[in-house]
C-alpha cells in the first residue's frame, strides 16, 4: 500500500518536471526565436500583438479559476482588468515635472491634482495597487455576495450590474480620468520611452514571465486538496458544507485571486497598447473574456491561455480583411463551441482527441489477445498485479 502511494508520488514528480521543461521550452521559444521568426516573414508587428494577447491570457487564467474550476460565471472581470490598466496608466501620466498636471486636465480647467492621483507618483505603490485594488474590491463584493449565498445566474447578473456602474463612472468623469477617451499618449516609464521598440520588447518578455508565474500559481491552487475543494464547490456546494468546509471563504479567495490576475493583465495590456479607456471595462469586453475560456476549454488552464491567444489572433486577422465581420464571427464561434465542443478545444483533445489520433493511425487503443473489456477491467488488473511475483 505504502509502496503504491510512494510510486504515485514519484510519478507525479516526474510529470511535474516534464511540464516545467515544456513550459521553459515555450518561454525560450517565445523570447528568442519568435521575434526573428516573425521578422523573417515580414510580420514583426505581430510580435506586439502576441504580447498583448499573452497579457489577455493572464486574465483568461483568472476567469478559468473562478468559472472553470469554481463554477461562478463572472461577467465583471472587465472592471478588474480596467482598474489594473488605469493604475499603471495614471502612473504613466504622472511622468511629468513636479507641479504640472496631466495634459487632459488642463482642457477641463482642473487646477490641482485630485487626491487619489497623488500616490501614483510612486512606482512601487502603483505595482501594489495593480494587484491589491482589484483583489480588495473583489474580496469585498465577493464576501457580501457569497455570504448571502447568491450564486448561479444571480451572481452573473450582479457582476454585470457592478460593471455598468464602473463603466459609467469612468466614462463620465472627464475631469478626473479623461472620460471616454481614457488615458493615452504615455511618455516614459522608469526613464525609458514607452513607445521605444526596445522598451516594448521588455514589456513582451515581462508579460511572458508574469504569465508563467500566473500559470504556476493557478496550477498550485488547482492541485491537491484545494483544487478538489473548488471542483466540489462547483459540483455540489451544499454538500461541502456538510463536510465542514465554508464555501463562502473559498469562493471569496478565488474571486480575489482571479481579480488580481485580471488587474495584472490590464496593466500589462495597457503598457503594450499604450492606452486604457473605459471600453476595456464594459460588459462586452467582460463577456469576451468568458468566450476565450469557453473556446479553449473550461477548467484546463492551458485552454484558457490558448483560447485567449487564438480568439484574439482570429479577431485581428479577420478584422484586417473584413472589418465589419468580426462580431458575427465571434457570435458564430461561441455557438459552435457551445454546440459542438462543449468542453472547448483542450477538453475535446483530452476526451476524444487521442482516440481520433489513434484511429487516424489505424491503431486500436489497446492491443489485446483476449476479451478487451476484461483486459481493461480495473479489478482484473489489480488482481493480476497482486499475482505477479514481487521483485
Amino acid at each position, binding site marked *: *500500500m505504502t509502496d503504491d502511494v510512494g510510486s*504515485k508520488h514519484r510519478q507525479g514528480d516526474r510529470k511535474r518536471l516534464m511540464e516545467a521543461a515544456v513550459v521553459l521550452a515555450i518561454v525560450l521559444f517565445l523570447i528568442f526565436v519568435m521575434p526573428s521568426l516573425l521578422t523573417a516573414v515580414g510580420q514583426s508587428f505581430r510580435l506586439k500583438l502576441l504580447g498583448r494577447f499573452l497579457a489577455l491570457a493572464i486574465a483568461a487564467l483568472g476567469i478559468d479559476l473562478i468559472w472553470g474550476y469554481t463554477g461562478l460565471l463572472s461577467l465583471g472581470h472587465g472592471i478588474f482588468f480596467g482598474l489594473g490598466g488605469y493604475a499603471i496608466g495614471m502612473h504613466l501620466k504622472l511622468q511629468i515635472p513636479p507641479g504640472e498636471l496631466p495634459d487632459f486636465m488642463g482642457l477641463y480647467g482642473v487646477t490641482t491634482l485630485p487626491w487619489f492621483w497623488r500616490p501614483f507618483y510612486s512606482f512601487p505603490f502603483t505595482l501594489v495597487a495593480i494587484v491589491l485594488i482589484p483583489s480588495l474590491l473583489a474580496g469585498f463584493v465577493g464576501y457580501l455576495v457569497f455570504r448571502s449565498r447568491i450564486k448561479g445566474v444571480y451572481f452573473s447578473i450582479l457582476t454585470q450590474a457592478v460593471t455598468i456602474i464602473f463603466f459609467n463612472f469612468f466614462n463620465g468623469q472627464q475631469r478626473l480620468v479623461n472620460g471616454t477617451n481614457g488615458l493615452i499618449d504615455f511618455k516614459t516609464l522608469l526613464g525609458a520611452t514607452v513607445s521605444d521598440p526596445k522598451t516594448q520588447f521588455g514589456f513582451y518578455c515581462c508579460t511572458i514571465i508574469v504569465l508563467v508565474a500566473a500559470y504556476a500559481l493557478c496550477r498550485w491552487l488547482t492541485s491537491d486538496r484545494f483544487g478538489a475543494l473548488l471542483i466540489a464547490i462547483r459540483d455540489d456546494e451544499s*454538500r461541502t*458544507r456538510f*463536510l465542514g468546509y*465554508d464555501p463562502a471563504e473559498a469562493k471569496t479567495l478565488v474571486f480575489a485571486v482571479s481579480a488580481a490576475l485580471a488587474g495584472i493583465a490590464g496593466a500589462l495590456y495597457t503598457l503594450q497598447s499604450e492606452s486604457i479607456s473605459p471600453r476595456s471595462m464594459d460588459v462586452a469586453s467582460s463577456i469576451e473574456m468568458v468566450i476565450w475560456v469557453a473556446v479553449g476549454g473550461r477548467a484546463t488552464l492551458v485552454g484558457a491561455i490558448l483560447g485567449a491567444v487564438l480568439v484574439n489572433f482570429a479577431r485581428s486577422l479577420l478584422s484586417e480583411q473584413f472589418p465589419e465581420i468580426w462580431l458575427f464571427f465571434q457570435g458564430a464561434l461561441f455557438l459552435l463551441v457551445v454546440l459542438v465542443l462543449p468542453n472547448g478545444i483542450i477538453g475535446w483533445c483530452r476526451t476524444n482527441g487521442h482516440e481520433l489520433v489513434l484511429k487516424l493511425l489505424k491503431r486500436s487503443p489497446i492491443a489485446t489477445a483476449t476479451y478487451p473489456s476484461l483486459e481493461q477491467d*480495473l479489478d482484473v488488473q489489480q488482481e493480476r498485479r497482486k499475482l505477479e511475483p514481487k521483485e
Partner: protein
Amino acid sequence: MINPDRILEIENLTINFDGFKALRNLNFHMETGELRVIIGPNGAGKTTFLDVITGKVKPTEGQVRFKGRNLRALSEHQIARLGIGRKFQTPRIYLKLTPRQNLELSCNRDKGILPTLIQKTPVAERRTVGGLLETIGLVPKADIAAALLSHGEKQRLEIGMLVAQSPDLLLVDEPVAGLTDEETYLTGELLTSLAESHSIIVIEHDMEFVRQIARQVTVLHEGSVLCEGTIDEVQSNPRVIEVYLGQPQEEPHAAA
C-alpha cells in the same frame, strides 16, 4: 439540565414552513454511543429532522443541543466541524473527483481555507484514506472518476467519506435504498460495527433492515414522536399499526 451523557437533546422543536408545521413540539434525546433508528410514514418529518440537526433548517421554536451546546447560531459547516456527519438518501459524492480525492477532502483535519490551501495532505491522512479504500473495496478504482462507479460502490464511497470525517454523531438517511439484499445485509453489518465507536441515527423504511440493526426505535408521525421502544414494542403498538395501516383514526394527536 444539561446531561453530559446525552450527545443529542432536542426540546420542543417546531419547524414552521410558511404555515405548514413539518415538525411540531418534538422532544427527543439520545445517549452517547447509541444506535437509534427512526421510522415513520412518508411526510412524517424524518428528513426535516436531520435538516435541523445539521443546520440546514433553523428551528422556529425550541432548541437542538449537541454535546450540551445549542446549535441555533451555528451554520452548517460549523456544525459539521463540531462532529456531526451526514449521509444523504441518494449518494452525494463528487462525480468528477476520484474516490481517493473524495475521501481526502472529507478526511482533512483542518478545514479552514488557508490550511487546506497551504498544507499538503499529511502522510497520516494518506494512510487513513488508503486503509479506508481497502475497507470499502475501492482500491482498484481509487484513481478513476467516481462517475464511473456503480450505485453500490457509490453508496460505499459515501459511507467511507462519512467515516473519514470521523464525526461523533452520524446521521444516515435511508442507507439501503436501491441496494440488493446482500448489499443491504453488508451495510447493516458495517453500521453495527461503526456503532461501537460512534453515535448513529439511521432513518429507514425497510423493516427487515431495521430489525437487523435496531436496538431503540423512534416512530415519527406528523412531525412529532409517536412512540419509542424496542422494535417488538414498536411493532405491537396499536397507534403505530394504526398510522402505518392508515385505519380511520380519532385525533392524530401525538404523544409528545
